[in-house]
């Protein structure tokens, strides 16, 4: 008995601590986290980091290729692309983060209720199936077009588009956890449905959701670019990765740097998030490992 219990004090004890320790041993998590953190810091300190005002027009500096003054070149209004990409990180990350949060909240509530209460499962999930039958991006375009172009509406549109799949993932893990014996033990003690769901089911069902939300985050950044490209994204002149690319497409042969640099920024963000998600998946959901 004493052998099993007398562990060194530094050993990870709670399941959460064990996960954190394993994450720091995962290379893809560390690389992904470093990339995401770097972009997040750029977004937070955009005002300090950007060399110029991202909105300032200047005819004298129109369509300048990258040089030592304008590292990423300038666009057709003479605005500094580097400054615009730095500020664009702000809007793109806010859209990604808010979409992930809203999807997380809505998907958790819908999936938990559907998975936990068998009578509500069918009605709720058939509705989700109906939403999933539309391609997510088409749904987002439709919602954004109806609501009008603004950052908030893009977030709403993307959240609606990504919620059904997220709800399905949460429901699946709730279904698995619901059948475990400690759930029956809690019921045998007289725990109410709400207590069983909140204290026993959900804490053990969050793993796949967290992994899913990193992909929602990445998808939202990509989808924002797609929405901007067809003109239902965040309205100009405020820069986002997508809107910079959209404005640069008319000059893609004469001034490719306008589209290349925000494109690279998207690649780095999405790559970072996907690596982060892979690392999380390996630790939280080992059965999914390929």
């Amino acid at each position, binding site marked *: *008995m004493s052998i*099993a*219990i007398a*562990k060194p004090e530094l050993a990870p*004890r*709670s*399941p*959460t601590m064990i996960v954190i320790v394993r994450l720091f041993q995962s290379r893809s998590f560390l690389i992904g986290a470093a990339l995401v953190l770097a972009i997040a810091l750029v977004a937070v300190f955009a005002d300090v980091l950007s060399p110029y005002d991202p909105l300032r027009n200047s005819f004298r500096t129109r369509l300048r290729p990258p040089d030592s003054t304008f590292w990423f070149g300038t666009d057709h209004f003479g605005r500094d692309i580097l400054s615009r990409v730095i500020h664009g990180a702000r809007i793109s990350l806010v859209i990604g983060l808010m979409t992930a949060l809203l999807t997380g909240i809505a998907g958790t509530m819908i999936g938990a209720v559907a998975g936990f209460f068998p009578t509500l499962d069918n009605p709720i999930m058939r509705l989700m199936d109906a939403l999933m039958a539309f391609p997510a991006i088409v749904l987002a375009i439709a919602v954004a077009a109806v609501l009008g172009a603004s950052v908030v509406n893009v977030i709403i549109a993307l959240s609606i588009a990504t919620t059904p799949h997220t709800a399905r993932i949460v429901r699946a893990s709730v279904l698995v956890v619901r059948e*475990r*014996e*400690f759930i*029956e*033990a*809690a*019921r*045998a*003690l*007289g*725990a*109410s449905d709400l*207590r069983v769901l909140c*204290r*026993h089911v959900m*804490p*053990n069902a969050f793993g796949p959701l967290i992994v899913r939300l990193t992909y929602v985050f990445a998808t939202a950044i990509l989808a924002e670019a797609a929405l901007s490209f067809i003109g239902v994204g965040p309205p100009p002149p405020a820069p986002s990765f997508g809107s910079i690319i959209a404005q640069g497409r008319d000059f893609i042969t004469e001034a490719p740097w306008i589209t290349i640099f925000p494109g690279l920024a998207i690649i780095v963000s999405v790559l970072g998030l996907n690596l982060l998600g892979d690392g999380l998946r390996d630790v939280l959901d080992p059965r999914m490992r390929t």
Partner: protein
Amino acid sequence: MTREIAIEARGLTKVFGGRGSVFGRQTGGARAVDGVDLIVRSGETLGLVGESGCGKSTTGRLLLRLIEPTAGSVAFNGRDLTELTKAELRRSRGKMQIIFQDPYGSLNPRMTVGDAISEAYVIHRIGDRASRAKSVLEMLDLVGLPRSAASLYPHEFSGGQRQRVGIARALALRPSFVVCDEAVSALDVSVQAQIINLLQDLQRELNLTYLFISHNLSVVRHISDRVAVMYLGRIVEVAEADHLFADPAHPYTQALLSAIPPSHPDEPRHRHELVGDLPSAHDIPVGCRFAPRCPFVQDRCRATDPQLSPLPDGRFVACHRAADGSLPTYRLNS
């Protein structure tokens, strides 16, 4: 020895499935438990044995109304559990508890042992934080775990220790009736003995009534006062443990007992092996449900279903031939 009846089941039946879905075809459903009558007396240990899938665990859960019976009633200390509302049922949960087979799966991996035990007090709003912590320590003492265990998580314990945690949680509200559902089956033999001794000590100390569900006949023989044998959702024999093991009345019990390995390798064995498989609970034979595998089967067995009825010596058996004494005498090895 006539003690008060702690729990009494009448015609308990559970059919799983059965309702056709929109796309699925109509099915009969699996009759996991099919008309079980069972009495557990206060302070006794009733062993419930039978092969896998015969409905032992389902019966245990039906007695606690952890699953809703399709038909039948359960009276606990004279109150019909099947008539309680959900809220009334939740309030009375403290008096009847269950100890599970899998000592890992039955503990929430994200809750410390202390939280798992004190949850019972939180649910039933007993005491304040300090008195709950004190009660948790008392429970740990009671089941022989160190007090430091309260702040640890389930994965930091061995199987036997986890089972002690499960026992502490089940006993936290001082129940009078406890279902032990294969409570020692997942443990090493040496640990099994410790847990069985603990269960017996606790029974004496707290005047507990046990329904001890197991497929391990030696364990059941050791711990039980009376034993009920289950076959395909039905009780086929109930008798005092010593009586049942010395002189089984039902042909199925005879076959079951002959499967116990002898204690000495040179001892002659009279294996009494059953032919065929357990019939599906979806498709229960007409007449005696043991008839297709019974070596002593007669035509009447295939025609009418024998009811559980008393023999002159006080045992209960559901067999036409045992009831009228025409069953060929059968001697066990011992």
